[in-house]
């Protein structure tokens, strides 16, 4: 059995997902490429969003990839950490905002 669930070397094989479904793989990578091109947002801004989302979904491949990408773009560690706090705040906030639901329920059921 494989000893670890993640192998850093697998990131480089990402493109191989197309081997088993070329048409959908090609569509995905084409879309992916287009998404990260500069548009209303700069490539730099998109890279920071990707880094924050990577931490939210806790994908080690994406964290590796977008930390490297950020460094290449001259994004500072301070900017990276701030982006992560935005992700963490939304994540934490998303848990806490459900507290209103809990409170509603308690208020309804409790005497």
């Amino acid at each position, binding site marked *: 059995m494989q000893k670890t669930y993640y192998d850093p070397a697998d990131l*480089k094989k990402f493109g191989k997902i197309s081997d088993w479904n070329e048409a959908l793989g090609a569509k995905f990578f084409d879309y992916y490429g287009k998404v990260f091109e*500069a548009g209303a947002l*700069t*490539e*730099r801004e998109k890279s920071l969003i990707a880094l924050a989302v990577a931490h939210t979904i806790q994908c080690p491949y994406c964290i590796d990839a977008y930390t*490297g*990408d950020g*460094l*290449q*773009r*001259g994004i*500072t560690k*301070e900017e990276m950490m701030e982006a992560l706090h935005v992700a963490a705040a939304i994540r934490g906030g998303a848990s806490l905002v459900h507290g209103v639901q809990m409170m509603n329920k308690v208020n309804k059921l409790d005497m």
Partner: protein
Amino acid sequence: MITSLHKRESELANSKRQLEILSNGIFKQGELPTFKQKISETGQFPLRAKKLEILQINLGYMCNQVCEHCHVDAGPDRKEIMTPETMLQCLEVIKSTGAHTLDLTGGAPEMNPNFRWFVDEAYKAGIKDFIVRSNLTILQTNKKYHDLPGFFKKHNIHVVSSMPHWTRGKTDKQRGDGVFDKSIKALKELNAIGYGMPDSPLRLDLVYNPSGAFLPSNQKSLEKDFKKALFDDFNIHFHHLFAITNLPISRFLDYLIASENYEDYMCALVEAYNPSAVKNVMCTNTLSVSWDGFLYDCDFNQMLQLPVNSKVKHISEYNEHLLEGRTIVTSQHCYGCTAGAGSSCQGTLA
């Protein structure tokens, strides 16, 4: 503060040791193809020198800084300085060459005691693009250099200066404490006399090297970010940004090994190999002259002590005709020139 590899008596101060490292390990075990194998895949081996366009002269390895990534292993302790005799030999070539660019580098070329005289004389040859690679801080370091911006202007020098980032933290980490503030001051002074201003003929370009074990991203977008940040924060203008990949030699190689990034960095360079950058690598149109007058295909080969593959070895025997068409001496460090958009002293290639 770090010191030069020479001062530390590090084994990497020896270029033979560097070449051994670059030829063994992952390249010997066949995990990665050698540069020769790689460029052979597209029939580009051997690389050959075309017509000379850029004459790059290294006036000495002495520098007021000791940057962590320096491929020259420059520093205040380096005593290798071009003598007036070798300068005279260079001037003979400068007067007769068909090259359109003369590029003075170092160390800090300004620290050569005969720098001003040499520039005066070379200027008379009327070469179209006369570059001095100035590290900026030298212009602020000592009173005797304070007049240099004006001196550059008088000789219509194209100033090319290093700036690894637009923030203090990243710049000082790579180049030493206080470097950022001094560089900003120097850039303001250069701007004040017209250098780097929009539409000004006094050219001021910046060089960006990544401050770590990663490759530079797109030159155009980095230039945009640098321009915006330096203008917004300091009202500074410059013309172009050259994004240069750090080659795995000298102090940068030392850093890669010490930080256990060497293999990953070499993999990244090989993976980013771009065959279309190969035909424009700078050794094909450049000649590098060392402080003692020997000839090399590029500044990196000079530091690795890999002399030109030609009968003509020294500036005193210079013969443009004999040098043209020579085969270029390569090793695995050359992957640094062919990664991504390619890299040269004038920025990206492809």
